[in-house]
């Protein structure tokens, strides 16, 4: 196990180096001039040049890159132009918001998609199977921001069932004490049930949007995996031994079918973290997705670089965790490794 982790670490390093280089080049290629931004709306060419020299932006790219890597090693991700705050602080503050939303959406999605997939597999070829496929596919065929806006319109504006899309908490509520950064967990830990209810109600619509969008891959994978397992020998044996359908499906087939689904979950989670940017914009969610989008639009290098780097590291860690989980669940994988 440790050897696998060590081997993985070795592979990660060149990846991360690649990510750092590509991000740096990409942000430098963005049209936009931080020197002009800093110099202010009334600056003439001279003033802008002065600021450019002060910021070190007139040095050749290599030197700038060297400075950037040096800062990275010291944990300094630079400052954001549009908010004026250090990127590290902002990411630290905003990551829990995005993570909570994505996890919530993912769990909601699993709760719906997995049973759907199992049902489709068990009743393969029937109209249930087709309906499941159509429903799941429909969810992923709409642009995610459109789904979000439709939900806001229907559930907040017309029906008033949902609270205002003002972010994680109503403007007049106070956030729970910062333990994990996840409002749901923190409010439960500190016993503030009112805050729990409030943050849950704010999470519903954006979570639902993400859920609709991720139904398809999870349902598909569950179905495929279940089909493969249901056709396998040990299931045939279980049926032949006279076990009832329920036991066969849930105790035997499902447990074994979950493995590929877990891999998919990891992929879907990282895909959602990236797709978050649009949902966060619609719901005024103070996460890193909206942070990155705004920074990109205003050609604000540092947050974009910080965001991408954070995501890359998260993705790598996530895959590692999944592989370890895989090894824990499935002894065959462990033996091979």
């Amino acid at each position, binding site marked *: 196990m440790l050897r696998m982790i060590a081997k993985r670490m070795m592979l990660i390093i*060149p*990846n*991360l180096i*690649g*990510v750092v280089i*590509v991000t740096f080049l*990409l*942000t430098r*290629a*963005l*049209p936009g001039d931080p020197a002009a931004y800093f110099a202010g709306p009334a600056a003439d060419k001279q003033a802008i040049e002065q600021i450019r020299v002060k910021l070190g932006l007139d040095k050749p790219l290599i030197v700038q890159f060297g400075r950037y890597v040096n800062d990275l090693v010291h944990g300094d991700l630079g400052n954001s132009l549009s908010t004026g705050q250090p990127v590290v602080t902002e990411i630290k503050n905003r990551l829990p918001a995005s993570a909570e939303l994505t996890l919530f959406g993912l769990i909601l999605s699993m709760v719906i998609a997995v049973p759907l997939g199992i049902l489709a597999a068990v009743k393969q*070829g029937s109209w249930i199977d*087709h309906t499941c*496929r*159509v429903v799941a*596919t*429909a969810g*992923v*065929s*709409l*642009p*995610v*921001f*459109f789904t979000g*806006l*439709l939900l806001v*319109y229907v559930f907040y*504006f017309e029906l008033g069932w949902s609270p205002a899309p003002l972010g994680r908490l109503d403007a007049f509520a106070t956030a729970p004490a910062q333990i994990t950064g996840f409002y749901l967990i923190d409010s439960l830990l500190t016993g503030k049930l009112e805050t729990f209810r409030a943050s849950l109600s704010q999470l519903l619509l954006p979570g639902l949007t993400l859920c609709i969008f991720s139904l*398809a891959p999870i349902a*598909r*994978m569950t*179905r*495929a995996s279940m*089909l493969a397992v249901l056709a396998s020998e040990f299931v045939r044996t279980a049926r032949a031994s006279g076990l009832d359908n329920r036991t066969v499906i849930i105790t035997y087939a499902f447990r074994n079918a979950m493995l590929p689904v877990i891999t998919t979950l990891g992929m879907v989670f*990282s*895909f959602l*973290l*990236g*797709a978050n*940017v*649009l949902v966060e*914009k619609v719901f005024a969610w103070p996460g890193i997705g909206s942070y*990155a*989008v705004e920074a*990109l*639009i205003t*050609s604000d290098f540092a947050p*974009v670089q910080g*965001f*991408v780097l954070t*995501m*890359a590291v998260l*993705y*790598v860690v996530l895959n590692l965790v999944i592989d370890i989980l895989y090894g824990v669940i499935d002894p065959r994988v462990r033996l091979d490794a």
Partner: protein
Amino acid sequence: MKDNTSTVAVPAPKAENNSIFRHARYVVAENPVTGLAFGLFILIALCALIGPYIVPHDPLASDTTATLHPPSLHHWFGTDQLGRDIFSRVIVATRLDFIIAIASVALVFALGGFAGIASGFFGGWTDRIVGRISDTIMAFPLFVLAMGIVAALGNTVTNIVIATAVVNFPLYVRVARAEANVRREAGFVQAARLSGNGDMRILLAHILPNIMPIMMVQISLTMGYAILNAAGLSFIGLGVRPPTPEWGIMVAEGAANIISGEWWIALFPGAALMVAVFCFNLLGDGLRDLVDPQRRT
């Protein structure tokens, strides 16, 4: 003896043709949804081809005396904030979105498919380099990478296509590589080599055609993704330039009007977009069933 061979030789080719169509018919009967998807695809392609010639109004003509009209007999889908006919715009947009989808797919297939089979076939350094590039791309949150590319290069249709292709590159490499790996030692490849074919020739003339069926599945899924990607980019202002009609940008522009009650501006292009992506996705599923039933999901 002579009679035997002649009676055996003739029916064989006809039987082969029959079996493909029969197989297709069987799949469609098993799965009526796939048939629906095929039909929709043909409809969309038709719209893309002849749409601009048959629309009732000029999609670019503004008419400020008729802005924000709900659907009526004169304007089937209503008019937008500049008085342009939405029905005409939706139909004409089919062509642009279709082009975006096809161009993205063609590009990523050419680059990713080829890189994939090369790395699967040759292994060694080719494999390592392509793998590194692929991993680096996959480490980025895909939509953000697409955003970054379009922001850096400028928001034109070409750049949107390039961004979509880059973002899907690793997926195609993976599928192509796996397929090429499997066929590397196959009999027909050995035979080709023995007949004196060079490596390039083998790759292009023998391996590529053989992986086409599997790739077709991926291709149709990517077509749907390309359109959604363009829509997402339009929402943050990085989409195609106005006044070009394109479903994604029409939805993004109409999104703000939903609250004020002008639902038709976003709904019709949104529905068209959804139908197209839906069709491509189902098509992918159907093709998968047709081509390799073992891989059904």
